[in-house]
């Protein structure tokens, strides 16, 4: 059975069709790249899967669980965790508390010492070297992204959604980031990446889905989709296709 199955998913905001009859599947153990120009609807798809918005129509199944009618908190309970395109840490809470937020109410549902120890291990895992009682608002942008990843992993999700998690990293940080995401393959059943960094897409994605103005225009391995004429046209315009 597929880990995730999107079928004829649609989201309208008034007259705007942000996601149009989108269907794709994610097989267990795979990393899927969700690509497309700005405004093509990638982040909306992430928001639909995680329950930030309800879809207008269509279905989202995680294993045999239908997610499309559930609230964000119920979807989190069923094993979907995410990071946000514009990083969202809890700025006046400590690093430790930020990670604990991910595992107290869902996933392992730990509390007290066990929760703290788990959170400490995750902070180390994502490479944050600050003292755990630092306020997270004091971190640099990159470390805030790491912290968000630690919070998402804390829930021990089946499906992890990373929305431009690698954006804004310098070349050496990017290599570390790619290695980190690759190492997650053994922990979560599947990952969906929204990403613009080509190196990362080639290095990480087993398959890619390319969107333009809300619809899927190509699907396949990274090298297949990136040479697909529709994709080239979407990114560069007609003359280059």
């Amino acid at each position, binding site marked *: 059975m597929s880990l995730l199955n999107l079928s004829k998913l649609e989201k309208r905001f008034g007259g705007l069709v942000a996601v149009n009859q989108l269907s794709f599947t994610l097989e267990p153990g795979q990393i899927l790249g969700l690509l497309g120009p700005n405004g093509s609807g990638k982040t909306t798809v992430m928001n639909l899967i995680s*329950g930030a918005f309800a879809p207008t129509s269509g279905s989202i199944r995680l294993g045999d669980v239908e997610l499309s009618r559930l609230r964000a*908190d119920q979807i989190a309970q069923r094993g979907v965790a995410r990071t946000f395109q514009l990083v969202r840490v809890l700025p006046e*809470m400590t690093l430790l*508390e930020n990670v604990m937020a991910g595992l*107290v109410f869902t996933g392992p549902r730990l509390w007290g010492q066990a929760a*703290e120890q788990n959170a400490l291990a995750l902070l180390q895992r994502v490479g944050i070297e600050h003292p755990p009682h630092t306020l997270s608002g004091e971190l640099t942008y990159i470390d805030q992204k790491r912290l968000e990843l630690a919070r998402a992993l804390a829930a021990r999700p089946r499906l992890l959604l990373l929305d431009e998690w690698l954006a804004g990293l310098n070349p050496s940080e990017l290599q570390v980031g790619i290695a980190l995401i690759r190492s997650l393959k053994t922990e979560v059943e599947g990952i969906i990446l929204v990403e613009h960094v080509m190196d990362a897409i080639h290095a990480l994605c087993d398959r890619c889905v390319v969107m333009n103005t809300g619809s899927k225009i190509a699907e396949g391995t990274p090298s297949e989709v990136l040479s697909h004429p529709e994709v080239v046209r979407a990114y560069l315009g007609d003359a280059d296709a």
Partner: protein
Amino acid sequence: MKSTRSLTAVLAGGLIVAALLALLPWFADGYGLSMSINIMNYAILATAWAMFSGPTRYISLATVAFFGVGAYTVAVVGEWMPWPLVLLCSAVTGLILALLVGLSTLRLAGVYFVIFTFGLTELIRQVVTWYEVNITGTIGRYVFLDISQEVIYWQQLGLGVLLFLAVVLIQRSRLGFALRIIGEDETVARHCGLYTPHAKLALFAISSVFMAVAGAIMAPRWTYIDPVIAFNPVTSFLVLIMALLGGVQRSYGPLLGVIPLALLFEYLNANFPNHYSILLGIIFMIIVYLLPKGVVGLVERLGRKKVKA
């Protein structure tokens, strides 16, 4: 997490303070005791306010709605029920009102919530006024209960101890943690698996029950109450500003604001009765501008600077 400071130490410290405070009626004169009752009342209201509004950052101006409903319960059922049952009635009334208000307002955020809670208080006052004028035919009620100042004070102390116990325990519980996450970022909270309306409603209800019982305990002191006295909106503002001056991040924070401000307001009221509102407004502004995180926030900021230096 405050695992560094042990729970037993906090509780033991609290009990010692409470025991010392219980001795006060033997030392204070009539004025002193009356002043202490006043301070104790604000201490309970401000701490109960901060219990909900501190972590969630939902600024409520409905404090006096619950306080007034508690007091009114005493005026209605006080003469024919035993006192403990009267207190229980006021707690239940406060709880029902909190659940009604909570279910309808906790989906609102920011300034809409503030305005709604303020409007709600006025609405309740008008409804009670209408009811008294049209149904009972009299605007005021008398509360003839033989409860001495000392007993009022001790009841307040008991309620205060319960309240602190609740605050300390909730802060260390999953519920308290949940509310802090909600206060920081509700979207993140939902994606961490929290169904946010339940968590908010639970804490709002607990906080409101304490306010209602505080009103019930205070009622016998007035002998006469009418809607204008029981639902005076200034009380909500005073409680808010006391809690903000003290700081809402720590359980003892509101107390640091209550004691100086209660004394100051008493002084202003006695010496400048005609300019009281103006002075009150100026103090509000000074506090919000100079101490956005209260005394606790200021002390902690200075503490951090010292550590870094």
